[in-house]
Each structure stands twice: as structure tokens, then as C-alpha cells.
């Protein structure tokens, strides 16, 4: 019986050594140590033995069992280590393949319009500087779009704004500046606010002309607000949306609602680019908004969002922005935080 056990152990240990993988090892384990395994069978016959032999055989059987278990354990560790060592080859998967059908990301389109994305970026910068974000009607009256902005009827500056007039006597706002007027009607200084929204200009459409635009209007009215403050706020904005290396410069320009008025140029990919109009809110505009220009001053600026989107992404034809064409839209798959 003891010999039989010794032979059994030797066979088992040989087979353990011969096993080439964990699965083979499992077969060996159940063949010898399973409920119907050979060691178990030996143990089951112990009851039939002479009582004197039961002790030594039982001990030998247990020793054999432990030896086999130890060998199995060792071999298993050995095999796992060997398998782990070679994963780079044995389990290599081509990372450039498409995901399997039905995976969470397969077949998902989803894109954010580049104008929406830029508007969010800009709003975030202004919110972080304590500006309110305002909105206003797209259909405006003459007073808010022109009159209160120091552009009375028949003023030559109306030529600067190709206006769409409506059958009810109103107009489609030609800039976001009316929101400035509306803000002053309901607020007292200090006022820090921006409005990013849609505007309209009467233009024939082609690759460089649209009739539907988006503009970012910002203004800041308080005691002793200066041109220097305006430069700071605009620089802060442009650092975030163009880059920390951006440089700005002011040139004199004319807008009836500011005095002095400026154009701001920025460096973009190595060149100066005309970006926005700005200036100190005209005293007339403050007065029209019920604010005493002797006590308060402010700056205001307006910049076209569409053109910035175009240079940001290298878009060659402005009509893409309003086209609803997924070949264009579906390229803008990110760009929205929260």
C-alpha cells in the first residue's frame, strides 16, 4: 500500500512537472486530489486495512497529498509567471482596430457647433472675472439699436450697419450693443456684463459674407474706468481664447457709441489681425441709460465670433457655419465643458 502511494506520488509529481499550462494543471489536480482522485481512492480504502497499518498509510497518504499540492502550487506559480512574462506577444491586440460592435462608444456621433463652443469659452472667462452674462431680443426697436447708442435717424453711421427692417417697424438687431442699453435701464453702476448672441446684417451671401452672425458684447461701467482697464480685461480674455503669448494693440477708430473709439489688433499665428472694436462708452450713451457721465465712465467692446471661429479652425467658407452639413459639423466633437 505504501509502495502504491509512493508510486502514485511520483507519477503525480511527474505529471505536475509535465503540465504546460494552468488548465493542464487543473486536470492533474482533479485526477489526483479531486473527490474521485487517486489519492482520495487510496484514502477511502484505509478503513478496510488492518488497524495497525491504518496509521502509517494514513500519514503517508496525507504526506503524498501535501507533496502533490505543494508541487501543484509551485508549478502553477511557475506557469502563471511564465504566461505573464510573455503577455506582450501572446495577448497583443491591435489598438488601431475599431471597437467591437455594441460597445459604448461605437456609432456615437455627437458634436458641438464651433460657435457654441467658443461662446462657452468666452463666457467662462467673463464669469471668472465677475461679469454677468446677459441676453436680449433679436428683434429690436430703433431706439435700442440706434437712438440710445448715439446713432439718431439719418446719421451717416447708419451706413455702417446694413439693417434688416421688419414689417412691424422694428429691426433685426445689427449688433449686441442694444443689450448695453437694456442693462443700463435696469441696473446701477458698477455694471459688468457681457452678451454673446446672434446679430443680423443685410448682406448677400457668399464665401466671405453672411447675414447671420454672432457677436460678443462686453461693458464695464463704474467710477474712473479707463482705457487701461479695458486693455486688461480684453487681454485677459484673449490670453484664454487665443493663447498666453497673444499681443494686442489699439488703433483709433470710430463708433458713434464710444469716445474715444478703437480697433484692437491681436497677434495670431505671427501676424497682426484686426479683431474687435472697442472704446470708452460715449457720455451720450451713459446719459441715455440714466447714468451720470460726470460720475461714471465705462468701456465697451464688440467682437465678431464667427470670424474668430473661422481663423481658429481654418474654415474657408463662412456659409459652412449655417449649413447644417454634417460633413462640417461632425468634425467638432468636443469643446464643451459642463
Amino acid at each position, binding site marked *: 500500500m505504501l509502495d502504491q502511494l509512493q508510486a502514485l506520488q511520483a507519477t503525480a509529481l511527474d505529471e505536475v512537472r509535465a503540465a504546460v499550462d494552468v488548465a493542464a494543471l487543473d486536470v492533474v489536480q482533479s485526477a489526483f486530489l479531486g473527490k474521485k482522485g487517486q489519492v482520495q481512492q487510496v484514502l477511502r480504502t484505509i478503513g478496510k486495512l488492518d488497524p495497525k497499518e491504518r496509521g502509517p498509510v494514513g500519514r503517508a497518504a496525507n504526506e503524498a497529498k501535501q507533496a502533490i499540492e505543494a508541487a501543484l502550487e509551485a508549478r502553477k506559480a511557475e506557469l502563471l509567471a511564465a504566461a505573464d512574462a510573455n503577455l506582450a506577444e501572446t495577448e497583443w491586440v491591435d489598438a488601431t482596430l475599431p471597437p467591437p460592435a455594441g460597445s459604448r462608444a461605437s456609432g*456615437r456621433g455627437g458634436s458641438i457647433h464651433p460657435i457654441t463652443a467658443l461662446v462657452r469659452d468666452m463666457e467662462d472667462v467673463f464669469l471668472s472675472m465677475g461679469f454677468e452674462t446677459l441676453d436680449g431680443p433679436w428683434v429690436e426697436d430703433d431706439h435700442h439699436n440706434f437712438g440710445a447708442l448715439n446713432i439718431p435717424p439719418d446719421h451717416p453711421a447708419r451706413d455702417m450697419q446694413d439693417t434688416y427692417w421688419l414689417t412691424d417697424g*422694428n429691426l433685426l438687431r445689427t449688433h449686441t450693443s442694444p443689450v448695453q442699453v437694456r442693462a443700463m435701464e435696469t441696473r446701477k453702476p458698477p455694471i459688468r456684463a457681457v452678451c454673446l448672441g446672434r446679430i443680423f446684417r443685410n448682406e448677400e451671401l457668399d464665401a466671405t459674407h453672411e447675414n447671420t452672425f454672432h457677436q460678443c458684447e462686453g461693458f464695464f461701467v463704474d467710477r474712473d474706468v479707463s482705457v487701461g482697464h479695458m486693455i486688461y480685461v480684453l487681454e485677459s480674455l484673449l490670453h484664454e481664447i487665443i493663447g498666453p503669448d497673444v499681443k494686442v494693440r489699439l488703433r483709433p477708430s470710430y463708433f458713434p457709441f464710444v469716445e474715444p473709439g478703437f480697433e484692437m489688433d491681436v497677434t495670431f499665428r505671427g501676424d497682426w489681425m484686426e479683431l474687435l472694436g472697442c472704446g470708452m462708452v460715449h457720455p451720450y450713451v451713459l446719459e441715455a441709460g440714466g447714468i451720470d457721465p460726470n460720475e461714471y465712465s465705462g468701456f465697451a467692446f464688440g467682437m465678431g465670433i464667427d470670424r474668430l471661429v473661422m481663423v481658429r479652425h481654418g474654415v474657408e467658407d463662412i456659409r459652412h457655419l449655417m449649413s447644417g452639413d454634417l460633413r462640417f459639423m461632425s468634425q467638432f466633437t468636443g469643446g464643451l465643458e459642463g
Partner: protein
Amino acid sequence: MKLSYRWLGEMVDLTEADPDRVQHKLTFHTAEIEDQEPVGAGLAALLTGRVTAVRPHPDADKLRLCTVQTGEGEAPVEVVCGAPNVAEGQVIAYAPEGATLPGGPDGAPITLERRTIRGVESCGMICSEREMGLGEGHDGILVLPADTPVGVPFAEACAIDDTIFEVDNVCVTHRPDLWGHLGWARELSALLHKPLQAPALLDLAELPSEGEAFPIAIDDEAGCRRYVGIVIENLTNGPSPLPLRRRLEALGVRSIDLLVDLTNLVLLEQGQPLHAFDLRDVRGGEIRVRSAAEGEVMNTLDGQARTLTAEDLVIADGEGPVAIAGVMGGENSEVRADTTAILLESATFDPLRIRRTATRLGLRTEASSRFEKSLDPELALQAALRFAGLVKHYMPEARFTRPLSDCYPRPYAGLELYLPYSLVRRRLGTRIADHRVRGILISLGFQATEDGDGVAVKVPSWRATKDIERPTDLVEEVGRVAGYHRIASVAPIAPMTPKLPRPVRALERRVAAVLSLELGHAEVKHRSFYSAKEAERIGLGAVAHLRVVNPSSEEHSHMIQSTAPDMLHTIVRNQVRVPSGTVWEGARLFVPRAAALPLERAVFSLASWAPDEVSPGAQFLAMLADVQALLTRLGITGAEVANAESPALCEGLPATTWLHPGRTARITRGEATLAVVGEVLPAVARRYEVAGRAALAEIDADALLVAHAERRVDYEPVLRYPVVPFDVAVIVPRTTPAGDVQRTMRAAVDGSIRDLHVFDVYEGEGIPAGERSLALRCELFDRAGTLSTKAADALRKRITDALSGAGWTVRRS
């Protein structure tokens, strides 16, 4: 507007400022110079030459052989010339071989080569104006004044080389003084610290002081601030000399004759429009400035008959109008080649009247665009005297026969402002030395005397019309001349008030994140217009729209009341390449109303399309699920879905007749409609050529905002006892919504049922025609303890009783 570098250089020393520097100075301190273009550069190789002999060509009647001398010591050259006017002794423009001329026979530049013309070799060319790109003259060669030096570069001898600047007119809308070269020269004088050499005027003393001035009356004083008239006789009109013609043409003004050219020259120099009437045609020997009679007709010098209104201002003689004031002269009194006597008009008209007339008549002239900028009334006399001086220069025999006529009822009274130094510092945010502030103002022609902590400023008349009105306007003058680059960036100090996105903006962000990033829709944008045809096509032809009075295209005449037309077009446009897809946009709909402003309804609009229907109504149901998923993600609870036919999104908006009557739903919450979702009506889909099935949804952003503001999570304690699953199948009429069945079940065992949903729908064998079987699954529970078998049976019975009670057949449970 164009500016001549050479001309500016005649009024201010530019020897140290090349065109680039001038452009830079003006752009950064005055107004944007958009561009510069050299002229006459292509003529660098041309020389002046003298024709010393002219002989007939041996083999051609119309050609002649000319000997041209191009300077002392140069060998004379032989040139074949076809011009009839070539003659011995003339000084001409000679192009040697190798020279490139701008205007070849076909209008393209040509390079001269030595060539043989009918057997005679020709060496270079004697040039006409057209060949040199200097004008239309091609009747013969250009003959230069006899005293022109010979053998020198032609462009230099005739003052042709120049640089023309292009001004961004918009930037000088408020600066009437910058609508002539003199104003720009004044700017350069201040910027370059060089004195201004203003053009010489005729001394008033040269006009007779005795006798009667030409009678001029201003009947409409609101329309005309000043009217200066000068009578000049003994004139010999004719073509202008080349340098004068060149000056005008380089600036885009066609040369007519000397008298007209001189009015234009003064216009371009002083910025004051002038008009010369032929004295023969001024009937009745008087001029009146009056409002036109309603319906009065006059022929302008462009040959058009113009019907006038009382709004228009006219210049009339004793019999009728001779000019539309400030806009255009009349055909009946224009200067002609044989004009020998003129009445010169130099006036200041009301800017708004001129602008309205010019706009109404569609006649935006050089004159009207200046008058509408509010001209300086003092300039009227100055420009008239400048013109008189020029006439005297070009026609020395001209005589001023009558005293000056000058109607100036309300002379310029002067404008005085006080500029505190502190205002400069506070507005610009930078310190500019006090003496510099004063110096800048003086350099621009202001009188500025120090007075306490500031300067007392007298505004010159040319800056006092709608330009400089307040001290801040002076801050601009100081700032721009000192240079805006000097202003440093300064962080404002402001109260630390927290600012979060407004709720509507926050909602828009969430909607975008869910629709685009979670549900995988592409955001698009459409314009806010459609055409009348489009309104008709979608079925809104009879609905009153807010319309654009002056659309740039018929496509954009109506303000949208539905996003459906744009969405359908986007579907069709994309279907070619993208067989199935989903898009959304944030839009506004416009409804006319009696209030001051129309109703603007913000909506979120969705569209989806697919070539095949995987199951009946799949597009519709998928869209509905997306909208519901959006509501869930926004935390909006209590939304109810129900089938509906052509529901309107909100009061005022039209019925959605383009949606499928059997596949449209309204999502409501309380009284409010949150959304309308539906499949496109097959007939509409065919009309738009949509392939397959498409679904549309419009979500009312305002209603969504209200619902979003009310969002809250009502926590229910976690259930601590086992639940009993329960399935039931019920046969209902085909068009009975499952939602009704679910409502009935919930009502029967309120508070003891959860997770109720349909898991199968069956129609066909075993079910009566016109009916269908709904299989529903739910869990029954008791919050207070384990549900006993008996209690569960009781709940089941209440459910099945309620279903039967509603008239439905419970198939199994």
C-alpha cells in the same frame, strides 16, 4: 477715399517720412489707411525727349519718321510714329526699347522691342496717354509744355510718380475735416512735428468792394447755414494741364475741363464741395436757396429727370431750380467748354436734409457724402477763395467783377471747453505730461491755454461740427496723438460679487451636453429666415409672419415660426452621404403681436432620419426616448407623454400640421407643454424629398426652464422588504395608449406598485381584429413589511378588476 502722398507732401514736409511711415503714422494716430498703391512706377524708364525732325515714311502715308533727342550728348534716335499731331520741336514722352508700358493695344502691359515697321527700324516709341496708363487720350501723342526739361525721367518731370493711400471711410465718419487732403496734412503736421503749409487763398482784397454783389437769398435757413458766391468773368475754359488731370485721375475723379476740374481739386483738397454755374444760364440774375415744391421736377446733369419733394433743398434762379442743393447740379446751368463767366457756389447745407435727399434719389455723390458729415461753415469762404486763387493762377486774365456774396445768417460763434488734466489721466488710465496735453492740442489747431489744473480750449471751426463737443472728445485727441501704445494694462478693482451663469445659460449648456455629448446628436445652426414659398410648402402659408421689408434675397423674407423647414432641408442635404443621423439646434421663433416687440420663443429643435423603419414608428419612438432622456438628465420629473394630433408648442405658435397624425406626441408637465415630438407626415416628407422616415421635435426652452428650476429629488426610503413580481397581459383597442393602462394599474394599487413597464405588444392570431395585447410587468410591495401571499393576491385582484372595469380583457395574470 483716396489720398495722394505727393499732394500731402506739398502741404507738409515729408522728406523724412516715406509712404510706409505716413501710412503707419496715420493708421495708429488718426484713422486707418487700409492700403497704399504706387502709381507711375511702371513709367520709370520713360524720358522726356524733343522731336528735332519729322519726315514722311517712305512706304506708309500715315506713318512718320521722327528724330528724338533725349538730352545733351545723347545720340538722337529714329522713331516711327503714327500720331497725326507729332511735330518738330515738341517735347514728348519717349519710351526707349526695353521699357514696359502699362497700356498696350489690348489693354495689357507691353514691353518695347526694337522692330522694323514697313521696312524702317523704329527705336522705342513716342507715347500717348493711354499707352502710359495716364488716361484715355489716344488721338495722338502726349505733347508736354515747351519748357519741360529734356532728357529727364518723365514721371518726375510731370509729377506723376506718387503713392495713393486708401482710407477706411467709416473711421472718419465723424471727421468732416478729413474729407480733404488739407485735414490729413494738418494731422501729419501734428504727428511729424512739421509746420503746415496751407494752400494759398485769393486775397479778399482782390474782389471789388464797390458795386452790387450777386443777389443770393436763403429762404430756408434751416437747410442752408451759409452760401458764398463769387462771380468770375473773362474765362477761357479748356482741357486741364496734365499734372492737374493726373492728380484728379489718380484720386478717381474724371477730368472734364479746367473749370470743373478746379472745383473738384478744391473738393479733394479742402473737403468743401463747390459748384460752378454758367452765368449765362442763371436766369433773372439771382439765386435762392429754398425747399423744393412738392412734385417739382428738374433734370440733373447726369441727364435724369428728378421729381422732388418739399424735403429736398434746391438752388433756384429767377425761374426755377438749377441744382439739387449739395447733391447734384442741373443740366440747364452746367459749365461747358465755351463758358466764359461763372457764379461759383460754396455753401454749407444741412447734413440731414442732404443725406435724406441723396438716399431717396439714390444719388450718393462726392458732394453729398461730405455735406452729410456736417461741414464747417467757415470752410465755405476759405474754399471759395482757394478756387478763385486757382482760377487766377490757371487763367491769369480772369476777372472778379462783383463783390463777394456771402449769406451767413448765424456765423460760427466759437466753442470753448475746459479740459482738466485729471480727466485725461482718469479716462486713459495713464499719465500724459501737462505740457504735452497742451502741446498736442495746439499742434492740431486748437487754442489751449493753461488754466489751473487743466487747459481752456478753443475749438477750431473745422473740428466743431458734430466732432468735438465735450471734454472727453479732447481726451481722445490727446490720447491718439500721444499714442495708444503708451497706455498700460491695469487690472480694475471691483467688488468680489460671485457670478454664475444665468439659469437659462446654465440650462442651454446642460441641454447641449446631453444632446451632443451623451445622446450623440450633432449641433447645427440655421438662419432665422425662410421664404414665402417655404412657409407655403410647410403649410404655414396662411399664417401671419413677421417679414423683412428689405431682404437681400427672397430666401430670407420671413422670420421663422417653425424650425421644421430648415430641419427638413438639413435632413435632405445630409441624407446623400449620411443615411441616418440626428441633429439639434437652439433657435428662436418669431410671432408678430400687438406689443412693442414680437414674441420670440426660444426652442430646442431636433431632427432624426433613417432610410428604413426597423419597426413601426421607430424614428418617432427613438426621438421621443431622446427627449425623455433629456428631461431625465435635466432632473425634470412629472412629465407626461400623450399622443396628439398637430399640437402647437405654445399659444401663438402654429399647429404642427406637418407631423404624422398617428405618430405625434405632446410632452406636458402640469399645464405646460414641454415638447412636441412627431414623425414627419409622409406627404410632407415626399414634398421635401426626404428618403425614408424622419422625426422632428421642438422643445419649449421657456417651459423647460421653469421645469428645470423646479427640479428636485424626493427621496423615498430604500425598500427593506422583498417585492413580489407580477406580470399581466391585457387586450385593449389598437389605439388605446399603454399609458392609459399603466395609469389604471397604478391608480388601483397606489403606493404598492413600482417598476411598471410594457415588455411585449402583440397583435394577430388569437387577438380580435382592431385590438392588441399589452404585456406588462411590475413589482408589488408593502413598505411596512413582507407582503403576505394573501395581501399580494388582493393587490393582483385589485389590478385585474380595475383593468376589467375599464372595459379591457385581462388575458392572463
